[in-house]
């Protein structure tokens, strides 16, 4: 098999995931796009491992490790998203702008407001 086939497919999948991470607004859809990017990397690892015929099969071992780390990442990421949803009532990454740096709004009276609202939401949740 020509090596360009898996390599090009991996590059295209990675860029699809890149578009999803940048363009999606829901945090869970962003996590799905991250999964696509990780899978593109896995395809590259497997293809180059089979091509090089590595005696230690480092590519396939690293692919298994990447899959396990991706599973850990999706668990932690989803629990963070759920906590944000419980505190703020939204999982919309465009609305989580507490640490935004804007020159015109007065920073010291914007930040405590958001913190107080978050604490109130946490207390009522």
């Amino acid at each position, binding site marked *: 098999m020509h090596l360009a086939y898996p390599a090009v497919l991996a590059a295209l999948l990675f860029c699809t995931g890149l*578009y999803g991470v940048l363009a999606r607004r829901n945090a*869970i859809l962003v996590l799905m796009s991250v999964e*696509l990017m990780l*899978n593109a990397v896995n395809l590259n690892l*497997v293809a180059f491992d089979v091509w090089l*015929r590595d005696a230690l099969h480092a590519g396939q071992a690293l692919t298994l490790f990447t899959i396990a780390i991706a599973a*850990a990442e999706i668990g932690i990421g989803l629990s963070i998203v759920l906590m944000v949803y419980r505190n703020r009532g939204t999982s919309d990454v465009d609305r989580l702008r507490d640490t935004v740096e804007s020159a015109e709004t007065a920073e010291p009276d914007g930040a405590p407001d958001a913190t107080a609202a978050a604490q109130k939401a946490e207390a009522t949740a």
Partner: protein
Amino acid sequence: MILAAAAPQGFLSPTGVEVAFLLVGVVTFAAAIVTVTTKQLVHAALWLVVALGGLAVEYLLLTAEFIAWVQVLIYVGSVVVLLLFGLMLTKAPIGRSPDADSGNRWAALTVAVAAAAALVWVVVDAFRAQWIDLDVPQGTTEVTGAILFRHWVLPFEALSVLLLAALVGAIVLSRKADAGEGTGAGTGTDQGTDAGADAGAATPDKEQR
């Protein structure tokens, strides 16, 4: 490994494995595109199943058999189910949601197309004359088990510790914070969802801290 001069290999005479790889690759790429562009959130998760399953078939075609079944088990079996549960718990709307894409999607499209063009150009230019020899399977379960438990045992064990830490962290993060502890510093030592039942018993204990 320069085998390009060998006669039976060429772009114009693809083997059966190459044709299968190409077809499954087109399906996988299309499913990935639908995953990142559809406006229905649950459909995105279901198209992700198609994309990940297609990748499992690609692993099989690359003779990495064990990786393919791990892909099916972990990704299609558990990660997508976790994502669906996440969508359910955040009350994602069923049906079309008009605000699934953010306002900077054209900038994102530009970046993605530029990155795809650059990567594909570099990859094709670099590996134009390289061929994968698939006559000996490289990733059977026997081979993978041997290398994993002969050469990669320490990373494997470290990874199990990492998975345990991630699970404990996920449980700690997703516990509900106690209602009476809004001003306290130790929000990590709460009682979970059944705090209302034994709130009276737990309060003196927290006052001591």
